[in-house]
Structures are given as structure tokens and as C-alpha cells.
């Protein structure tokens, strides 16, 4: 092309030495230009990833990471890193509310077969893994088989994938292939899997067990990001934790365990233009959209993550401008906000921005239905549990322990999770008076010290388990106060978290406070009380045929009044049996310094650094 242009750029060629020389010059110029352009086209387009290496973002995690194999790690902070390194087929639209799934590594949303069971994806062409020795000097393009490989790794029992229960349920042949590998001792990656397979270099298909409205949300997570088999095989089981090689926007530059993680922009990552529609009623999002619209992203070239465990150190690091953004630790909320939850003037004056949002979580106290003291389905035991729940003041817990930074929960599904019904009201309320009256009716008589015994006269001791953290200690104090009000003798058993997990799965813990976060839809939350998850996440060991039947319906029904009614019934079953004492959903307050632009949080997206920009120092 340019060769021709070069020639044409020399008008009026006169047949003399000068013009011949000029023509020769033009030819050389064009050749050079052509060669340069070819070279540029063949090599990574330096303009592909607009990230500026001088733009450095500093953030901190309050909890150490564990590792970076997306198939094996399940903690929030490790996942925040893998989300920046690996690229799943789908993601969520950055701004859309309610959340909306959009393509990521996939060219477009999948083609769904007529029977709603087979999903066919086309992978975008021209996406490359970051360089690694395993690729032997070649540029390695992302293919459909890489996604197949990642999903198959979940089925490999050696990886102990935490996602197994979801995939077992939904993907055809998944559970069988897993059991086969357990029996034979090895997973066969070369054999074509009936439920997950590639059709050609860029096309893959996933077949489900039955039509499922929530399957796609699984594919938005880093654990579904494309991984290269050669890399996994090269580094082995242990090594792959510290050698994440992906096609995502960032790559791991340096890792000091439990202390520092440094990411730098992946030059192969094609940029995008910041072009998202803000929800019309959200002023913060509107401001961000007008500020960021049209920018080439990602902008941030380097991310330095520090691990700061002590809340005091974390807060001081932010106020001392050593980190650019922070989730305000609850104990320091008064240093950030006025009693009305507005940003304090000192921060406003410094140009600090605040982002307050309801978290997709739910905290609750579960009551073990199989416990000899408080478990069981007889009316007395049901009344006991419900009285205990009525005696606990959630408002006080929110006010004193969570410093007002939470919303009392009326239902298990958090306000930002799809399926939440803002109009639902539970039958539970705080009333020690009614609790005492209920217990009196069922014959729980008080002894000389004012503590109640069982209706048959035997002593009654309600045991709650608790970890040794200071937050748990505060909650224990509130429990003691609450139970004293209704005359229930309380015993607090301290233990370590892993030990309690073990005992909980064996239905050996009478009561414990737990939380559940980042579910994309109501189904994943309600699964907590599904009888088939006893021994996994159903620590309340709740087994109710009516609830189970509703749950099966929930998986299939589309949105609408019928689904709402099913959810309401499930909530009510939980309340009526006194299975969970719902506490609250957290409200996170995040502050960012002025130089960080576009800062907000999506309830489900973990890899959000590509949507921010930062001013250079």
C-alpha cells in the first residue's frame, strides 16, 4: 500500500539524474516504511494495551493471599489477583444495574441449543498468553481447548476444586468423570469429555444436565479463565500456585508471600474504550461516567498490593497516603464518616472520594437441627430456637459491633443479589418480652438463679461456638447479654476456624455465626439449606422435604410471580423452623484519594482495576 503511495508522492517525475535519485529515495523510504509496518503488525501492537507503566496503583488486602491457581484457591483476595491475570469467557457489564452478563474472552454471548442444554461459545481470535518458558519462545494464542482444559481441571480430584458441587449439579458427565478419576487414581485429560469439549480451534461447547438459568454466571469467574496446559504441566501441582500465566490484563511481576504482590500490565492484552451506561439514579456512577467516558483502558500500568492485617495499620496507611484506596475497617468508621454516614469534611477538603455500597453478603447465626439440646422438630424445640432468635438484638449488633455499617436482613438474599425482594417481611422480630412469654408457654421454667430448664426439668445450656477474633468476642458479649434477658444459660466454646469447619460439616456444632458472600443469584444462597449440601455448606444440617422441593423449582423457574412465591415460601420455612437467625448485610465504605479516578465497586466483578485511572505523581 505504502509502496504505491510512496511512488505517487513524487509528482512530475522528470527523466533526469535528480528525479532518478529522488525516485530511488522514494523507493527506499517506501521499503523501509513497508518493512516497519509489517514488523509492527507482526509484533504485539504497542498501542494494543494503553496502560501507562508510570501509572502505579497501591492498594492493600487485610488478609493474606494463599496462591494463584484459580482452580484451587477460593478465598476472596487470591481471587482478586487471579481475576486480573486470567480471562474467563464472560464477565459483567461494569455499570449495569441489575447485573448483566456480557462477553469477555468470548466473541459474543453463547449460542444456546433449542433444548436449552448445550451452550456453544466462540473464543475471540488474537488473544495471547503472557510469555513463559513453557511456550518455548513462541507466542501462544488463546484457544477453545484452553477453556476446556480449565474446566476439566475442576473435575480432576487432585485439584480439590471448591467449585465441584456447582459443576457436579449442572454440567453433564462432570460428576461421573470425577468419580472415575477417583477410582482410577488419575484424570484423563486427553479423553473427550461428554459435557465439555472443543469443536474447533476457537469453538467450544458445554452441555448441561438440565436447563439452568444460572449456569452462565459461573463462567464469569476467574476459576473459569483459560489456562495453558503446557504451563500447568511444566510447573506441576505446587509450582502452578506461584506461576499464574493468563491472557488477562495483568501479569504477576513479583510475589513476596503474605506481604506484597506486584502486577504489571500485560502488553498482549487488547485495550477497550470506557463506554458504559450508568444507572440513571446513581450520582456517583453518573459522575464517573462523565469523567471516564471515551478513555482508552486499561490505564494503570502497575499495581502494588500490600498485605496489612492490623486495621490500625491499614487505616494509617491510607490516611498517610501510602495506599490509594481503602475499605474502611469498621472500627475506624468514625474517622471517615459523620454520624449521618456522610464523608467527614477533612476528607472532602482533601479531595477524597467515598463509595458506599451494600455488599452481596449475608451474616447469620445458624442453629443445628440435629443438635441434642436445641435441634429437633418438636414444637418445644421449634419454640426454643425461635425464642432465642427473638431475644437477640440485631439492631444493637449493627449499632455497636458493626458501627451502623450494615442493613438488617429480612431475607437470606442480600439486596444486591438477583432474586432479592425488597417487599418481603419476615415473621421474626426482636422482642425479649414475647420470647419470654413463648418459653413460658412451652414449660421452660426458671430455676432459682433465673435460668430456664427444659420442660422435663433437665438443665438447659445453649452452646455457641466462636473463634478467637476480637469481633467474635464482641458478639459473644452481646449474646450473653441477650440470653440473660430471656433466662437462657449460655456457654461459649472457643475454637479455631478450621476445627470448627470440620465439626460443622459433621453436624456437631450447635450454633455458630457465619457469613456467605458473592453469590450471583438467589439460587446459590438458598442452596445453603438444601438437604443435599449437608456435610458441605449446610451447617444447620437442615433437612426438609418441602424446602428441597421448592429448591428444585427455584433452579428452573424464570423470574416472575411464581418464582417470587417459591422464594417467599423458602424464607418462611426457614423462619418457622428457627433454622437461621439472620443478622445483616454489610455496607462497605470505600475511600479513594483524589488521584484515583473512576473508583467504584461492582457487587460481583473482582478484577476491577482495568476500569480505573490514576493521575501520575
Amino acid at each position, binding site marked *: 500500500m505504502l509502496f504505491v503511495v510512496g511512488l505517487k508522492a513524487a509528482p512530475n517525475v522528470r527523466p533526469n539524474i535528480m528525479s532518478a535519485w529522488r525516485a530511488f529515495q522514494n523507493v527506499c523510504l517506501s521499503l523501509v516504511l513497508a518493512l516497519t509496518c509489517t514488523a509492527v503488525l507482526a509484533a504485539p501492537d504497542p498501542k494494543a494495551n494503553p496502560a501507562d507503566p508510570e501509572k502505579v496503583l497501591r492498594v492493600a488486602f487485610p488478609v*493474606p493471599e*494463599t*496462591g494463584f491457581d484459580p482452580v484451587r484457591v*477460593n478465598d476472596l483476595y487470591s481471587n482478586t489477583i487471579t481475576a486480573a491475570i486470567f480471562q474467563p469467557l464472560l464477565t459483567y457489564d461494569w455499570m449495569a444495574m441489575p447485573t448483566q452478563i456480557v462477553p469477555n474472552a468470548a466473541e459474543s454471548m453463547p449460542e444456546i441449543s433449542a433444548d436449552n442444554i448445550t451452550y456453544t461459545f466462540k473464543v475471540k481470535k488474537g488473544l495471547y498468553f503472557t510469555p513463559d518458558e513453557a511456550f518455548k519462545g513462541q507466542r501462544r494464542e488463546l484457544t477453545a481447548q484452553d477453556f476446556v482444559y480449565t474446566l476439566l481441571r475442576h473435575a480432576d*480430584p487432585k485439584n*480439590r476444586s*471448591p*467449585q*465441584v*458441587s456447582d459443576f457436579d449439579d449442572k454440567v453433564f458427565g462432570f460428576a461421573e468423570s470425577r468419580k472415575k478419576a*477417583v477410582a482410577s487414581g488419575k484424570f484423563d485429560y486427553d479423553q473427550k469429555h461428554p459435557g465439555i469439549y472443543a469443536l474447533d480451534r476457537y469453538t467450544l461447547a458445554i452441555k448441561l444436565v438440565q436447563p439452568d438459568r444460572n449456569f452462565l454466571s459461573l463462567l464469569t469467574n476467574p476459576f473459569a479463565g483459560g489456562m495453558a496446559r503446557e504451563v500447568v504441566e511444566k510447573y506441576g*501441582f*505446587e509450582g502452578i*500456585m*506461584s506461576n499464574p500465566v493468563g491472557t488477562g490484563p495483568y501479569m504477576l511481576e513479583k510475589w*513476596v*508471600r*503474605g*506481604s*506484597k504482590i506486584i502486577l504489571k500490565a500485560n502488553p498482549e492484552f487488547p485495550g477497550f474504550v470506557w463506554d458504559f451506561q450508568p444507572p440513571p439514579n446513581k450520582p456517583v456512577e453518573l459522575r464517573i461516567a462523565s469523567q471516564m467516558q471515551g478513555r482508552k483502558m486499561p490505564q494503570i500500568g502497575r499495581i502494588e498490593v*500490600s*498485605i*496489612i*492485617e*492490623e486495621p*490500625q*495499620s491499614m487505616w*494509617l*496507611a491510607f*490516611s*498517610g497516603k*501510602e495506599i490509594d484506596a481503602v475499605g474502611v475497617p469498621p472500627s475506624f468508621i468514625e474517622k471517615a464518616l459523620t454520624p449521618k454516614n456522610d464523608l467527614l469534611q477533612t476528607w472532602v477538603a482533601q479531595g477524597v472520594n467515598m463509595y458506599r455500597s451494600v455488599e452481596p453478603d449475608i451474616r447469620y447465626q445458624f442453629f443445628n437441627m440435629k443438635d441434642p439440646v436445641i435441634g429437633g422438630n418438636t414444637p418445644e424445640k421449634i419454640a426454643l430456637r425461635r425464642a432465642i432468635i427473638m431475644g437477640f438484638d440485631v439492631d444493637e449488633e449493627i449499632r455497636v459491633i458493626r458501627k451502623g455499617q450494615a442493613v438488617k436482613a429480612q431475607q437470606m438474599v442480600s439486596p444486591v443479589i438477583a432474586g432479592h425482594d425488597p417487599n418481603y417481611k419476615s415473621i421474626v422480630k426482636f422482642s425479649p418480652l414475647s420470647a419470654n412469654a413463648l418459653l413460658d408457654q412451652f414449660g421452660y421454667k426458671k430455676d432459682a438463679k433465673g435460668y430456664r430448664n427444659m420442660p422435663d426439668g433437665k438443665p438447659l445450656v445453649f452452646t455457641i461456638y466462636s473463634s478467637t477474633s476480637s469481633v467474635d468476642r464482641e458478639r459473644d458479649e452481646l449474646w450473653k447479654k441477650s440470653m440473660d434477658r430471656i433466662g437462657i444459660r449460655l456457654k461459649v466454646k472457643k*475454637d*479455631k*476456624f*478450621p*476445627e470448627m*469447619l*470440620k465439626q460443622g*460439616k459433621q453436624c456437631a456444632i450447635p450454633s455458630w455465626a457465619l457469613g456467605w458472600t458473592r453469590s450471583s443469584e438467589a439460587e446459590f444462597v438458598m442452596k445453603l439449606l438444601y438437604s443435599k449440601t449437608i*456435610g*458441605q*455448606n449446610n451447617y444447620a444440617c437442615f433437612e426438609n422435604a418441602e424446602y428441597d422441593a421448592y429448591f428444585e423449582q427455584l433452579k428452573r423457574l424464570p423470574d416472575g410471580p411464581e418464582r417470587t412465591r417459591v422464594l417467599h415460601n423458602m424464607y418462611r420455612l426457614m423462619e418457622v423452623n428457627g433454622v437461621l437467625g439472620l443478622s445483616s448485610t454489610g455496607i462497605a465504605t470505600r475511600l479513594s484519594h483524589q488521584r484515583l479516578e473512576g473508583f467504584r465497586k461492582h457487587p460481583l466483578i473482582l478484577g476491577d482495576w482495568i476500569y480505573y485511572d490514576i493521575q501520575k505523581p
Partner: protein
Amino acid sequence: MSAYIFRRIWQMIPTLAGVILLVFFLFNWIGGDPAYVLAGLFSNQEQIDSIRAELGLDQPLAVQLWIFVKQVATFNFGNSWTTGESVADIFATRLPASLTLVAPLLLIETLIALVLALGLAWVRGSSVDRGTMLVFTSLMSVSILVFIILGQYVLAYRLGWFPVQGWSDDFWKNISTYAPLPILLGLVVSIAPNTRLFRSFVLDEVDQDYVRTARAKGLSEPRVMFVHVLRNALIPVITFVISNLPGLLLGAFLLERFFGIPGVGREIILAVERSDFPVIKAVTVYVAIATMIFNLIGDVLYRLTDPRVQLR
């Protein structure tokens, strides 16, 4: 002398065996079967059983003990159960950070305490001496926690003289920027007990006959103090310092925790919280061996420098 050393090393073996036994039976009952941590919150029984088999948790205790003994002999404790890092790596990578904090701290605190001790011994019995000792005693009654909290708040946050927390890979940056505040706080906490101890060492010397002799010979007081007494008092001081080094590394864990320093002490707390058996086992054994070796060095030094002492 070499016979003495060999004999001491020979005597270390039963002690090491005792430590291994103690550690093994103690930690076999430690709360937290790590299989459940590994399998994560979403595991099922199958996964958990395969982990237990892989980690040898289903073997009888005697077999597990034998495996442990072999590990100690080959210094190969395998990999951390929670991060997959090899335990040797963990130790190697965390040790520099701890040393960067502890070594300067030890040096400075010993020097300061020694100088103060000599000074106090010189004015022994006076109101300065008694007043200082009183102040020291009060200082020692305040918990290190209080010092760290107040120190970080006032000096780092309020006055901005130091960074609030952090660590880098560059040794010089660490020494000049990140280590000073934790070292300062460590000094404040240790100055009182160390000075008291060293003062008692010095006073023991000052009461000896040779001091009376030196004075009788007409030597000036400074010469007596800073040449003769100091030389002899240095012996228990150095012995004390050397023997205490391993304990000091661990004891700095509060400083490491508050200031975000990736050292050995902080690693141990994490390992205990996560029931990371290989890490805890390895650290305990390494530290016990280190303690024994340092004690031996201290004893040998003592023997070499104090001819009155008979080694049996």
C-alpha cells in the same frame, strides 16, 4: 576444649530427641485438622479422605513419628499445607526480614544497656541510681502492646516521622525507612530489663576482690570501671545476648505483625492459626537446635574468657 565441645554436641542428641517427641505429641493434638482447611469450605468427604491419605494422617502414630524423625535428619519438612511453599524456602525467605529487624535492635539495645549499666554502677546507691531503677521498674510494668499502639499512633500517624508500616526488598531502604520505628519501640521495651540485668552483672564484678586490689594499687576509678570491670562484665553480657538470640527472633512477632514485616515470628503466628503442621514442626525444631548451638557457643566463649570456670 574440643573434647568438651564434642561431649556437649553428643549430649544434645537426647535433648533433640526430647524436643521431637514433645513437638510431635503436642502438635498431633493441636486444634485444626488441616485437611478441612485445604479442602476449603465446599469440600466433600471424598476430597478430605484423599488429602488425609496424601498427608499421611491416616497412618498410625508410630509411623508418623518415624516419618518425622526422618524429616528432621534430612532437614526436609516438605511443603506448607496452606501455601505449598517448601518449608525450607519459607524459612530462608523470612529470616532476612527478621534479622534486619532483630540484629540492629540487639546491637543497639546491648550497647545502650551496657553503657547505662556501667554508669549506674558507678553512681551506685545514689539517688540517680535509685531514681533510674524506679523509673525502669515502672516502665517494665507497661505491656509492649501499649508501647506499640501509642508509638505507631503518635510517631507515625500524628507526627509523620516514620512510615506507618511496610517493608521492601531493598535492605538499605528497610534499614533507613521501615525498620527505625519498630526498632525504636523494641528499644524502649527492652532498655529497662536489659539495663537492670547488666547492672547486676557489673555489680557482681564490682564486689570482687580484684577490684579492691586495683583500687588499692591506686588505679583511677574510670580505669577500674571501664577497663577491668567492663572486660569481666562483658562475659555474662555476651553470653546472655548469644543465648537469647533465637528467642528474640520469635519474640519480635508483635512488632512484625503491627508493622507488616514478613519475618519468622509473623509466619509462626500464621502457621498456628492455619494449623500448618509442617511449618510449625520445622520452625520449632530449627529454633530448638539453634538455641542449643547458641548456648554451646556462649558456654565455650565463657570458658575461653573466664579462666576461673571449670568445665566438667
